[in-house]
C-alpha cells in the first residue's frame, strides 16, 4: 500500500494545478479545491487505516535505497496528522466558497491553499531532513502568497513581519541542515539516528540541535519567538487565518517532536529541560496575551500560542503518557482551533466587527449559533465530556505519574486562565446587549448579515463540531492512536526498521 503515501502528496498538488488552470468561475475553482481536499481526506483515512492495521509503512522515491534516496514514511503520528490536516482543508475550502471574494479567488486563493496543504502533508510524511526543509519552503511560499493576497495596508504590514521572521528561521534551518550533513554525512532521518549518536564530538551535535530548536521554535511560535504570530494573523481573511492557525504552527511542533526523538537523542536531560521550561512559559505567555486583548481575532491568535505549550509538554517530560497526551492535545487542538476561527468569522459577519466593545446581543439574535461557540469554547477549555477535557486529563495524569508538581501547577493555572478570555468573548459578544451607539448600526447589520451567513459557512462549523463531539464522547480510538504514536516516537526501532531494515515492507492488500 505504499502508493498511498504518494497519493496523499499528489492529490493536493494536482488539485492546485487544476484549480490554477481552470479558468472557470469562483464557484468552479472552489469546487475543485473542495473535491481535492475530500479526495485527500479519503486517501489519508486509508493511510491511517493501513498504518493502524499493519504498522508504519515507507516508500523509497525513485527506487533509491534508504540512506541515499528520499524516503516517505507514515507512522501513526504522521498518518493521523495528515488526516486531520485534510479534514481542516475540507472545512476551510468549503467555508472559503462564500468568504473569499472574487479578487482573491482570481489571485489564486484555491491554488495556494492546496499548495499549502501539499507542503503540510509533505512535511508530515517525509523521512529526509533536506526534504523536510523543501516542504517547509513549499508551505512558506504558499503562505506568503496567501498572506499578501488582495493586500490592504494593514495586511501588508503584518505580512512584512511574517515574511521577515520566517525567512530568518528558514536560513537558520538551512544552516543547521548543512552542519548536520557535515557532522554525519547523511540526511536521512533514520540514518541520522545512529550516525549522530556515534559521533565522537557530542558537543557539536548539541550545538546543531540548538539551531534546530530555534528554527522550528520560530515556526511553532514558542515563548520568546512568537511575536510574529499575533502581529500578522489577525490581519487576514478568516478562511486563511483558520488554515494557518490550525496547521502551520503544528507542523513546527511536529518537526520538533521528530527532530528531538529521532535525530537527536539527548543522553543528558538539558535539552528536554529547556523544552519543558519553554513549553510552560509559552503556555502562560499565550494565555496572558489572550487576556490582555479585546479583539476576538487577537484573543484567538494568542490562544494558538498558549496551546503550543501543551503540545510541547510531552517532549519536555519525555514519558510515554506525556507524549500521548501532547499528541492527543495536538489532534483535537487543530480541529478546535479551526472551528473557533471559523466561528469568529461568522461572529464578524453577524456583528460587523471583531472588536468586543462593538459587539453584543448575538445570543438574542442567534441562539443556536451561540451554542456552537459555547461548545467550541468549552471544548478548548476542557469541560467534561468534551475533547479538551480528555487532553488535559492526560496531561495532568502524565504530570502526576512523574510527580512533577510544579508542572502540574502551571498547567492547572494556564487551564484556569484559558477560561477568562473565552468567557469574555461569550459575555461581551453574545450575552450583553448590543452597544448603545452601535445599536442602530448593529441591528441593521444583523438583519443584513443574517442573510449572508449561509450554509456554506455553517456547514463546516457544524461538521467540525460533530467531529469534536464524537472525539469527546468516544475518545478511546483517538487515545489509542495517541498511545501508539507516542510509543513509536519514543522507541524508534520500528521506524528505523521500516526505513532502513532489510526486511521489505510486506505488500499486504487493504482489508475492506
Amino acid at each position, binding site marked *: 500500500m505504499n502508493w498511498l503515501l504518494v497519493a496523499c502528496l499528489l492529490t493536493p498538488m494536482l488539485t492546485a494545478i487544476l484549480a490554477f488552470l481552470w479558468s472557470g468561475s469562483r464557484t468552479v475553482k472552489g469546487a475543485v479545491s473542495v473535491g481535492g481536499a475530500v479526495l485527500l481526506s479519503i486517501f489519508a483515512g486509508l493511510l491511517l487505516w493501513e498504518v493502524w492495521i499493519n504498522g508504519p509503512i515507507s516508500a523509497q522515491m525513485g527506487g533509491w535505497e534508504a540512506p541515499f534516496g528520499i524516503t516517505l514514511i507514515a507512522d501513526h503520528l504522521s498518518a493521523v496528522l495528515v488526516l486531520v490536516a485534510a479534514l481542516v482543508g475540507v472545512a476551510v475550502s468549503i467555508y472559503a466558497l462564500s468568504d473569499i471574494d472574487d479578487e482573491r479567488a482570481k489571485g489564486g486563493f484555491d491554488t495556494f491553499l492546496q499548495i499549502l496543504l501539499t507542503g503540510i502533508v509533505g512535511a508530515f510524511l517525509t523521512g529526509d531532513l533536506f526534504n523536510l526543509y523543501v516542504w517547509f519552503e513549499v508551505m512558506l511560499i504558499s503562505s506568503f502568497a496567501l498572506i499578501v493576497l488582495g493586500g490592504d495596508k494593514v495586511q501588508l504590514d*503584518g505580512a512584512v513581519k511574517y515574511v521577515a521572521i520566517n525567512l530568518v528561521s528558514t536560513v537558520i534551518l538551512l544552516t543547521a541542515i548543512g552542519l548536520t550533513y557535515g557532522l554525519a554525512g547523511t540526511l536521512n532521518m533514520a540514518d541520522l539516528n545512529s550516525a549522530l549518536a556515534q559521533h565522537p564530538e557530542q558537543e557539536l551535535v548539541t550545538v546543531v540541535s540548538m539551531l534546530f530548536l530555534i528554527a522550528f521554535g520560530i515556526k511553532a511560535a514558542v515563548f520568546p519567538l512568537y511575536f510574529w504570530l499575533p502581529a500578522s494573523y489577525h490581519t487576514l481573511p478568516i478562511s486563511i487565518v483558520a488554515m494557518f492557525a490550525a496547521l502551520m504552527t503544528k507542523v513546527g511542533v511536529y518537526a520538533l517532536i521528530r527532530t528531538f526523538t529521532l535525530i537527536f537523542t539527548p543522553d543528558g536531560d538539558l535539552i528536554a529541560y529547556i523544552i519543558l521550561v519553554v513549553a510552560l512559559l509559552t503556555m502562560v505567555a499565550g494565555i496572558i496575551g489572550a487576556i490582555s486583548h479585546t479583539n476576538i481575532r487577537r484573543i484567538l491568535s494568542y490562544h494558538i500560542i498558549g496551546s503550543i505549550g501543551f503540545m510541547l509538554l510531552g517532549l519536555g517530560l519525555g514519558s510515554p503518557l506525556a507524549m500521548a497526551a501532547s499528541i492527543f492535545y495536538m489532534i483535537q487542538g487543530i480541529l478546535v482551533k479551526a472551528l473557533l476561527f471559523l466561528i469568529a468569522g461568522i461572529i464578524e459577519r453577524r456583528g460587523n466587527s471583531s472588536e468586543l466593545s462593538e459587539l453584543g446581543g448575538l445570543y438574542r439574535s442567534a441562539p443556536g449559533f451561540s451554542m456552537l461557540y459555547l461548545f467550541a469554547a468549552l471544548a478548548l477549555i476542557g469541560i467534561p465530556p468534551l475533547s479538551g477535557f480528555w487532553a488535559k486529563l492526560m496531561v495532568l495524569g502524565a504530570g502526576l505519574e512523574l510527580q512533577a508538581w510544579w508542572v502540574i501547577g502551571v498547567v492547572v493555572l494556564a487551564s484556569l486562565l484559558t477560561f477568562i478570555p473565552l468567557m469574555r468573548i461569550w459575555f461581551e459578544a453574545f450575552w450583553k446587549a448590543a452597544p448603545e451607539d452601535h445599536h442602530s448600526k448593529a441591528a441593521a447589520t444583523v438583519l443584513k448579515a443574517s442573510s449572508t451567513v449561509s450554509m456554506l459557512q455553517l456547514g463546516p462549523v457544524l461538521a467540525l463540531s460533530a467531529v469534536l463531539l464524537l472525539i469527546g464522547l468516544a475518545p478511546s480510538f483517538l487515545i489509542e492512536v495517541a498511545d501508539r504514536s507516542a510509543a513509536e516516537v519514543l522507541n524508534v526501532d520500528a521506524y528505523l526498521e521500516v526505513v532502513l531494515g532489510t526486511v521489505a515492507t510486506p505488500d499486504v492488500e487493504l482489508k475492506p
Partner: protein
Amino acid sequence: MEVLFGVLAGVLMAGGVWLILSRNLLRFLFGLVLISNVANLIIFASGGVTEGSPPLISKAGLLENAANSLPQALVLTAIVIGFGLVSFTLTLALRAWQSIGTTDVEKMCLSEQRSGASDEQGGVLSCEEFTRIERQVIADNHPTEEIAR
C-alpha cells in the same frame, strides 16, 4: 580550504546580522541575502572542498579525492529557493513602501497597534500617535537618558 570557507561564512554572517539589526527594511533584506548565502556556503563546505576532481565513478570505482556531489545538489536547490524568496520579499518591500509610505520598521506598526489604546475622547489612536506617547512615557521614566531617535 574549509577553514577559508569557515572564515568567509563567519564574516558574511557578522555583516548579515549587523544589517538585519538595522531599522530599515531594505537593509534588513540585504542582511538576509547575506546570511542565506552563508547557509549555502556552509552546505557547500560541509561535503568537503576538493580541487578539480569530478564526482564521477569510473570502472575502477570512485576516483580518489572525488568531490561529493550531494552537497552541490543540495546547495543548488537552496540557491533556487532562496532566489525565489528574496525576489518575493523585495516585491513585498516595494509594495509595503508604496502603500505604507515608509521602510522604517519602527513606523510600520499598523498591524501591531493595540486595539485597546485610545485617547481621552475614546477615539482609537493612530500608529504615529501611539509611538509618540509610548516614547514620551519612556522619556518621562528615564529623564537622564537620551532616547535614541
